[in-house]
């Protein structure tokens, strides 16, 4: 068992949220051996925000009518666009130095499946505890029986566009391994970024449908009880501690991380040119 830092639920605007995740990742990849711990952070959004996947074109958003008035930010992670509104968002940063203690084999490049498995199983168990049954989408992309995909076909005729590789614009209308689905709807999606071996994984749990993406139901829309962020985050902390063997201890950002986050926010995530770079 190793110690990890837990940053409790807080809300910020899109650029700040993305900058904090990036600052934790970059700090963890430059600090010396033994100076860093895994960090688990939960957050909300101070206003409904559309986040674009790192490689998505800004012009693609004009095709998604319902989210056009929202503030926008470009994530550092890939995948499709997300309407962050009535959701619980998490980030997990695991420094390179910690990985040998948590993984049988640590690779320096590409996705780390173990972190997807651990976090998503923790979320599935937590949702079940709160009355929402869900499961991991284990099959590769584009399984056709899922409801989001059916609603996606409807939405496409209503103005959604298909990007390169015929991928839907919205993350929650795509399917890939480790996605969590409930009653055929994707309700949890995550993505990773690597920096010098360290890993950032962040993801969204849809709690209920947003007016800016009405075709996507959240967990509370699919069951008779309300799934609330504080209950869900509390449950996930416990489950993830068991799965990763990390003792989560409440903490906050270090001064150097705050300063770096502020700098990254201005230079990258709040910068109009960076948003429009593709």
């Amino acid at each position, binding site marked *: 068992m190793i110690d990890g830092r837990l940053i409790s639920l807080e809300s910020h605007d899109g650029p700040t949220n993305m900058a904090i995740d990036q600052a934790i990742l970059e700090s963890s990849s430059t600090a010396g051996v033994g100076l860093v711990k895994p960090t688990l952070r939960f957050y909300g959004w101070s206003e409904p925000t559309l986040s674009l996947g*790192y*490689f998505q074109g800004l012009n693609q958003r004009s095709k998604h009518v319902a989210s056009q008035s929202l503030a926008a930010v470009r994530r*550092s*992670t*890939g*995948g499709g666009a997300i309407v962050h509104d009535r959701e619980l968002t998490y980030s997990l940063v695991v420094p390179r130095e910690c990985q040998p203690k948590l993984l049988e*084999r*640590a*690779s*320096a*490049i*590409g*996705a*780390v499946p173990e972190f*997807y498995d651990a976090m998503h199983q923790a979320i599935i168990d937590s949702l079940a505890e709160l009355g929402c049954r869900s499961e991991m989408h284990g099959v590769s992309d584009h399984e056709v029986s899922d409801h989001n995909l059916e609603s996606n076909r409807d939405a496409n005729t209503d103005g959604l566009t298909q990007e*390169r*590789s015929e991928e839907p614009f919205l993350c929650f209308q795509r399917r*890939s*391994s*480790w996605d969590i689905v409930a009653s055929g709807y994707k309700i949890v999606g*995550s*993505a*990773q*970024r*690597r*920096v010098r071996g360290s890993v950032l994984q962040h993801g969204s749990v849809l709690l209920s449908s947003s007016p800016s993406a009405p075709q996507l139901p959240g967990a509370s829309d699919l069951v008779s009880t309300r799934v609330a962020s504080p209950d869900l985050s509390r449950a996930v902390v416990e489950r993830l501690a068991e799965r990763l063997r990390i003792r989560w201890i409440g903490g906050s950002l270090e001064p150097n991380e705050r300063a770096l986050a502020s700098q990254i926010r201005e230079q990258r995530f709040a910068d109009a040119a960076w948003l429009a770079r593709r």
Partner: protein
Amino acid sequence: MSRDEKQLLYAESHEWVDVTEVGGAKVAVVGISAFAIEQLNDLVYMDLPAVGRVLTRGEEFGEVESVKAVSPLYAPVGGEILEVHSDLAEHLDRLKEDPYEFGWIMKVKITDEDAIGLLLDHAAYEKQCSESS
């Protein structure tokens, strides 16, 4: 004729380097190894650097999006980028089939020749891969 992977040098961060001589200058042809491509699984996007950019060893020069992860690429040597394989980003499917010939990413006029000595030979790189994968 395809490059022989056993004759190439490698960075710990999985870039391969073919050091050539052009007009008396040392030029590194750079790509990413078959092992890395395998680890990355299906590549969907690649960001390439601009010609003329001057890199320092270890600097991030590009990024790849694979299934479920974005990963940076790091310069194995320092120098000026002379040429970039501009077709590559549109044909990532071919990277897996031919990582050492079609898969070259950029050619760099090496300014820090000492860095060449820090790269791994094929045997050392294979050992690193077998320990970390």
